C-alpha cells in the first residue's frame, strides 16, 4: 500500500434486503489530507458509503482500511472519524458549550483541557461567546458551524460531511463552501464530503467521485471530471452538455448531429460513439461558416451570458454566449476539434445472455433472456437448419440439440418504446437513469430482476417512474454462443 493512503475501500458491497445491491463492488483510495467529494443523484449510494465509513452501516462484504487496519466491523464510537450530519443532529437538551464538549467528555479529558479545546473549536467556526446559548436560539448557519465544531474538536483523522449545506439558503451556502475549504486547509484533516450539487463538488474538492446507481462512474480532479467525462452519464450530470450519438468516419473525424466534425480523440473507423460538447465551447458564426447551420429558438439572459438554443434540423444545441441572438436568427455553429469530447459507445447495453428452452414445430423456438420468454422463428438462431417432422436438422441432416443452448440477444435502444401502461410493455421496470442526447432522451429502465434496459424516447419521463418497455420481437437480434460442451 502507498505511504499516504489513509482510507482504502476494497470490494465493498452493501445490500439491505439480501436481494438488491445498493452498492456494488466499490473500490476507492483516499489520501491523507484530501478533500474528497462523493457526487451523485439521490439514491446513488453516496450516503451509504459515508455511513459505512462512519460505522453506522456495515458492508455486506468487502473491507474498509484506515491506515492499513480493517475497521469495517468496528462500532462508530471506536473509530477516529467524526461526522457532520445532514440535519446537524445537535443535542437539543445541551447548550452550545456542552454540545461541542460532548465528545471530549466521553473521552474523559480533564476539565481545563476540554475548556481550552472547545474554546479553540469555537474560534475556528467563529462563534466565540455563544457558549451558554441554547441550540434552539441559533440560526441554521450557526447550528451548522456548531455541528462542525462539535466534530473537529475531537481532532479526528477523517471528517465526514453528509450534505451539510443542503439546508442553508443560497448565499449562506456559498459562504460556507469557502469557509469549509479554508477550514480544510487550516486543519489538515481528511474531508469526505457528500453532495448532489455538482457546483458545490467542483468548487470545493481535490478529488470527486461521481456515483450513480451504487457504482463509481468516474474518479478525478474537478478539471478531469468536467473536461474529460468518462461516460455519458458523467458528461450529463456535471455541468451542462450537448450529447449526440454518432460514428467515427475517419482519422480523428466523427459524424454526429447531421454533420462531420474534426476531433482530437482517435478511435477505429465505424465505431459508435457519443460526442460531448459543452455549451460554452460552441461558437456562433455567420450562416454557412461553421459545421452546422440552424435557427435560434430561444435566448435567455442569465446574468453573465445568454443561454441560446439553436435548432439544427432535428438536433438541438445549447450554447452559452455573450451576445444576444434574437429568436429566429439563422446562424452557423462552429466547434473547434479540441472542444469535442468523444466517448466510445457502451456496447454492453441491451445485451442479454439467453437460453433455448425447447422447440415446437408450430410455435417455433421458445427462448428466454432477460425478463423475456417468447417463441421465435428457428431461422433467427439457425439460419441453415430445416424442420423435419418437428425436429431441427442441420445441412447434413443431423438433428441439432437445441435445448439448453446459450445465445446472446440484443436490441438497439431506439427500437424500444416506453409506455405508462404496464400491460403495453414487454417488460416493466423503474427508470433509474436518464439523460438528454441531442434530439432524444436515453432512459435506463431496471426491472424487478435487476436487468437494465436502455430505451431511447423523445418524451420526458422522470427518474423513479414505473414504466412498461415495449420491445418489438423483430427488433431483437440473436447470436448463438460457442457451445462449450
Amino acid at each position, binding site marked *: 500500500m502507498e505511504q499516504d493512503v489513509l482510507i482504502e475501500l476494497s470490494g465493498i458491497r452493501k445490500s439491505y434486503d439480501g436481494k438488491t445491491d445498493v452498492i456494488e463492488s466499490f473500490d476507492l483510495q483516499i489520501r491523507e489530507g484530501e478533500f474528497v467529494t462523493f457526487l451523485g443523484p439521490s439514491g446513488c449510494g453516496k450516503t451509504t458509503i459515508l455511513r459505512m465509513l*462512519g460505522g*453506522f452501516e456495515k458492508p455486506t462484504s468487502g473491507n474498509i482500511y484506515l491506515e492499513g487496519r480493517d475497521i469495517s466491523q468496528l462500532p*462508530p*464510537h471506536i473509530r477516529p472519524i*467524526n461526522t457532520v*450530519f445532514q440535519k446537524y443532529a445537535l443535542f*437539543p437538551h445541551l447548550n452550545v458549550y456542552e454540545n461541542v464538549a460532548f465528545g471530549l467528555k466521553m473521552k474523559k479529558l480533564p476539565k481545563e483541557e476540554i475548556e481550552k479545546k472547545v474554546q479553540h473549536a469555537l474560534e475556528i467556526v467563529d462563534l466565540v461567546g455563544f457558549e451558554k446559548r441554547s441550540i*434552539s436560539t441559533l440560526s441554521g448557519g450557526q447550528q451548522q458551524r456548531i455541528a462542525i465544531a462539535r466534530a473537529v474538536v*475531537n481532532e479526528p483523522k477523517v471528517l465526514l460531511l453528509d450534505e451539510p449545506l443542503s439546508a442553508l439558503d443560497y448565499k449562506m451556502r456559498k459562504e460556507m463552501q469557502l469557509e469549509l475549504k479554508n477550514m480544510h486547509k487550516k486543519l489538515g484533516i481528511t474531508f469526505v464530503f457528500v453532495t448532489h450539487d455538482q457546483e458545490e463538488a467542483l468548487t470545493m474538492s481535490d478529488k470527486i467521485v461521481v456515483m450513480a446507481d451504487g457504482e463509481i462512474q468516474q474518479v478525478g480532479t474537478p478539471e478531469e471530471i468536467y473536461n474529460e467525462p468518462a461516460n455519458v452519464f458523467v458528461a450529463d450530470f456535471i455541468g451542462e452538455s450537448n450529447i449526440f450519438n454518432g460514428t467515427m468516419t475517419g482519422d480523428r473525424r466523427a459524424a454526429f448531429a447531421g454533420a462531420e466534425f474534426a476531433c482530437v480523440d482517435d478511435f477505429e473507423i465505424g465505431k459508435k460513439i457519443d460526442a460531448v460538447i459543452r455549451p460554452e465551447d460552441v461558437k456562433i458564426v455567420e450562416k454557412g461558416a461553421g459545421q452546422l447551420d440552424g435557427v435560434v429558438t430561444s435566448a435567455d439572459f442569465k446574468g453573465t451570458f445568454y443561454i441560446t438554443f439553436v435548432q439544427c434540423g432535428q438536433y438541438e444545441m445549447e450554447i452559452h454566449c455573450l451576445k444576444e441572438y434574437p429568436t429566429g436568427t439563422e446562424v452557423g455553429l462552429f466547434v473547434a476539434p479540441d472542444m469535442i469530447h468523444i466517448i466510445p459507445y457502451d456496447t454492453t447495453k441491451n445485451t442479454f445472455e439467453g437460453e433455448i428452452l425447447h422447440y415446437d414445430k408450430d410455435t417455433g423456438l421458445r427462448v428466454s433472456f432477460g425478463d423475456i420468454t417468447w417463441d421465435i422463428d428457428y431461422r433467427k438462431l439457425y439460419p441453415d437448419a430445416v424442420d423435419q417432422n418437428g425436429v431441427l436438422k442441420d445441412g447434413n441432416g443431423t438433428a441439432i440439440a437445441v435445448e439448453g443452448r446459450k445465445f446472446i440477444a440484443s436490441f438497439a435502444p431506439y427500437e424500444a418504446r416506453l409506455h405508462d401502461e404496464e400491460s403495453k410493455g414487454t417488460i416493466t421496470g423503474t427508470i433509474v437513469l436518464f439523460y438528454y442526447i441531442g434530439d432524444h432522451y436515453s432512459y435506463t429502465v431496471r426491472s424487478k430482476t435487476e436487468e437494465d434496459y436502455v430505451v431511447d424516447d423523445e418524451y420526458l419521463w422522470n427518474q423513479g417512474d414505473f414504466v412498461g418497455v415495449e420491445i418489438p420481437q423483430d427488433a431483437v437480434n440473436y447470436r448463438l454462443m460457442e457451445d462449450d460442451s
Partner: protein
Amino acid sequence: MKLTFLEKKHLVIPYAVFLLLFVILPLVVVLYYGFTDGNGNLSFENFIVFFSGTKTMGTLVYSLVIAVITTVVCLLIAYPVAYILAKGAYCRKHSFLMIFVLPMWINFTLRITALKEILSVLEGNLAYYPFVNTIICMVYDFLPFMIMPLYNSLSKLDSSLLEASADLGATSAKTLWHVILPLSVPGIVSGVTMVFLPAMTNYVVLDMVYNSTYIMGSLIGSYFSAYDWNNGSVISAILLMLIGFFTMFTGRVAGEKEVARS
C-alpha cells in the same frame, strides 16, 4: 345546514354545562364540607384532626409508599419495553404495542380477579403477601399508562442524535444516560403523573387482594359510608392539593425540557 341560530361558539354549551355540573360543583361541595364542621360553621378542625391523627397520617404515608413503589416498578418495566417498541427494528411494532395495551380493553376488576387466581395458585394463600400482591396488581393495572407516553416520547426521538452520540465516542450505555434519558423526560413525567396519582387512591385493588391496610381512597370511602361528609371531604381536599403540587412541579420540569427541545 343553517347555523344562524346555532353559531359556532354555542357549540361550547354542552361542555360548559358538563364542566359546571361534574367538575366545578363537586369541587365547591368538597371544599365547603372540608372547611365546615357538622353544623355548617367555618372551621379548620377537620384539617387538625387529619394531621394530628397517627392513623390518618399513617394512611397517608402508606399510600405514598404504595404509589411510589408502583410508579418506580412501572417505570423500570415500561422504559425498556417502550424503547424496544419505539426504536426496535420490528416490522410489526404496532402489533406488539397492541399486546401491551390490549388488557385495557378488559374490565379492570375482571383483570384483577384473573390475576388474583394466578397469584393464589402460585402463592397458595393470597393473605400471606398482601403488600407484594397489591404492588403486583397495581403495576399490572397501570403499566399501559406508563408505556404509552414513554413510547410516544421515545418514538419522536431523532435517531440521528443517537448516531451523533456514538460518532462522538459514546458507548450505548453513555448514549442512554447522556442523550436518550434526558430527552425522554417529558414522557417520563407524564407517565409518572398518570400512574402515581391513581395509585395513591385506588383502594379497590387492596380490597380485592385482601390487603386490609387503609390507603387514602379507602379512608375517604370509610368516612363517606359513615355519612361523615366533613372528614371525608377534607381528605379529598388534601389529596387534591397534593396532586396540584405534584402536577405543578412535574409540569415545570417537563416544560423546561420542552422549551429546550424546540
